[in-house]
């Protein structure tokens, strides 16, 4: 038996698939920014994304006032001996008497082009895109971790009741007037409320996780907690007024719209840390595939590992759900799609795969959700399911021999 025969059993396609994932992300980003009710041509988008923000600032001295170019002028400051520095709108600059000897200098800041596109891209499209990329990746990774932990293919990130807890506290916030209390009546306030709810459920689940021997038992407990929180939400909806309920229902259908940059930054910060954490436990996750007994016999610290898995998957789920509401299907389906695409069960390969393809799928579905029936926006969960179900079924049928 030569060594050659059993060389590195790495699926040669893996790097290709990673590359494909990255390209798809890139493509979806360009498309995501360009389409919408205001159509920005892709060329423009690329230009905006890659334009070096060369904000030139030029100081003009006395004799050069006549020839100050106004093109691309963003900001003008007129320095006057008596009045000091005065900010002047570029459009009103022509009203200023440039022959006044007291003007010591004029400082003009030149920027980039079209303000309109800039605002749409910067303030609406990009945050939304970034949020859907990060959120999709987070849900996919959370789903994968839980599917490995419970050794159950039909587990999704919401199985431990995290999203139900999050929605419940969000309901308290939106329907029961919790605003006046701790969180303040802003979207960020709602986020903190929802996040707290999710983390509270996570804490309860962790408490049980340390007592319960069997993973299946924990699964059932999580599902039960979920039902309980749903019941709470339903209760609140019964007594709230119609407008509030409408707003709440829309929130609970899950959407990435209305994301602001500060929210994206928070999402990114938390997600990236926990993505790293999941990559770092790749070895333990693989050991776990054989079952708890075998994993323990190979040296895995089961207690610690359980806590880590629940923590990582819960926080990833919590942060997405608290911002965007529950988004169906991604957490359940993307791990399967990635597994069948890469044809492996190796977590060290699957986690980056889930990050890439979870991001891509969610961003793609989000684009469809807001453009297909524009100006009406479909619920993201609708699109992910409609789009994703045929894909999953097709791949399952194709892979029948090895499952």
């Amino acid at each position: 038996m030569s060594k050659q025969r059993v060389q590195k059993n790495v699926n040669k396609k893996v790097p290709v698939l990673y590359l494909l994932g990255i390209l798809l992300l890139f493509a979806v980003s360009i498309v995501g920014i360009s389409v919408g009710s205001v159509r920005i041509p892709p060329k423009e988008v690329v230009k905006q994304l890659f334009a070096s923000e060369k904000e030139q600032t030029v100081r003009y001295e006395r004799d050069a006032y006549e020839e100050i170019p106004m093109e691309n002028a963003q900001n003008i400051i007129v320095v006057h001996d008596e009045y000091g520095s005065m900010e002047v709108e570029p459009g009103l600059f022509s009203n200023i008497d440039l022959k006044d000897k007291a003007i010591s200098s004029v400082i003009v800041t030149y920027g980039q082009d079209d303000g309109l596109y800039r605002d749409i891209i910067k303030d609406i499209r990009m945050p939304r895109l970034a949020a859907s990329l990060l959120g999709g990746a987070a849900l996919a990774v959370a789903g994968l971790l839980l599917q490995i932990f419970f050794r159950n293919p039909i587990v999704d990130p919401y199985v431990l009741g995290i999203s139900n807890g999050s929605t419940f506290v969000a309901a308290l916030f939106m329907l029961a007037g919790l605003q006046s209390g701790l969180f303040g009546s802003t979207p960020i306030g709602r986020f903190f409320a929802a996040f707290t709810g999710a983390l509270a459920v996570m804490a309860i689940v962790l408490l049980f996780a340390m007592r319960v021997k069997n993973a299946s038992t924990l699964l059932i407990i999580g599902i039960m907690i979920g039902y309980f929180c749903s019941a709470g939400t339903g209760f609140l909806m019964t007594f709230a007024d119609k407008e509030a309920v409408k707003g709440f229902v829309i929130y609970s259908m899950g959407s990435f719209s209305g994301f602001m940059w500060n929210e994206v930054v928070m999402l990114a910060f938390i997600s990236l840390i926990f993505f790293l954490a999941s990559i770092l436990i790749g070895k333990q996750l693989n050991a776990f595939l054989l079952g708890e007994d075998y994993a323990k016999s190979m040296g895995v610290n089961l207690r610690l590992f359980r806590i880590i898995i629940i923590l990582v998957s819960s926080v990833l789920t919590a942060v997405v759900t608290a911002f965007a509401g529950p988004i169906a299907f991604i957490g359940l389906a993307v791990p399967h799609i990635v597994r069948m695409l890469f044809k492996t069960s190796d977590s060290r390969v699957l986690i980056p795969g889930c990050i890439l393809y979870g991001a891509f799928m969610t961003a793609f579905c989000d684009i469809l959700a807001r453009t297909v029936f524009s100006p009406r926006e479909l619920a993201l969960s609708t699109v992910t399911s409609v789009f994703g179900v045929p894909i999953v079924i097709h791949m399952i049928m194709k892979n029948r021999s090895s499952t």
Partner: protein
Amino acid sequence: MTDTTVKVKDLSIGYEKKIICENMSFDIKAGELTCFMGKNGAGKSTLLKTIAGLLPSISGDVLLLDKRLKEYKRNELSKLLAVVLTQRISVDFMTAMEITCMGRYPHTGFMGRLNDKDRVIAQTSLEQTGAIELANRVYSTLSDGEKQKVLIARAIAQEPKILLLDEPTTHLDIKHKLEIMDLLNYLARDRNMSVILSLHELDLAVKACQHIIAMKDQRIMYDGAPEAMDEEDMINRLFDMSPKRFSHVTGSVELSAGKSHQHFIVACCGTGVSMYRLFAKNRIGFTTGILYESECDYPVASSMGAHVLANKPYETNLDIQQEAISCIDKAQTIIDTGFPINDQTMQNKMLIVHAVEKNKTIISFRNQEEFEKQFGKAQVTYMKDTADVEKIFR
């Protein structure tokens, strides 16, 4: 080298509050196969898992290489001890080789990267289990026996000093059972491992293992070499089998036939074995004789619980002969198995002669010419195949 690797002191095992077996004390040595034997539910799997550190003990101590189990660090323990369990694994897309490489886990670094040495060890393990052709096949598509071999290879790849296997041969065909027992023997002798296993195949346990620990009624019933178990009829007592169904000579059990005076099978020199089994499988009792206790017919007929008339090896006993004759008188059918007729088998010849005199119904497996030459003319049904005797049962 027979150093003690595992010492168990006053150990009680079980789950939560239920004690399955208590106050156990025994030693297990390197270079040997030790088999835990007992009824279903006696605690064999529980004991294996407790020694492996997968289940907490209720009280008492387990010492591995003179260090208490509880004092071992996880990684240290995983380099000392590897297991093969009964539970099914279901992983998609993993090949047999990948599963085997999992055994290298305690020896690999941070992200579980495998180096060349790891791959070579994994490959060798697969070769030793006779599963190397399965290396690139997907595990979930393998047969139960093939899967078993891969799991054993995985454990071997972990390079343990102590190997614990829970019913490792259960799903294997006879050839592979032997291959695995040979392999385990090799690992014990040449690699000086302590191989500890539970087996349901009693004959393999007795034939292949050096040390048997038998568990019954929440305690250890026997702790010693398999060769000494025969004297105390240990196995039959262990499994509550009566009549004494297990024979160390055959290494196996027989179906029960029971005693009956209706049919007398005159046999010796091995000619009775297939006839006895035919009767037993049709649940028909019989009497047989006259055997020597050293003949292979003897343990087969005894294990069945039939009425056996037997002499000590090469001795003659007139009482037994008398009894045999009176049994012939009582019997309705006499079966002559066609045993060889010579000086040593005179007693049996005389029985047939007596049967002819008394005009008994006789079935013979000799040809007519030989029968009449030996015993004279008589009303005899001549048969060729053992199975034909079934006609008389209907």
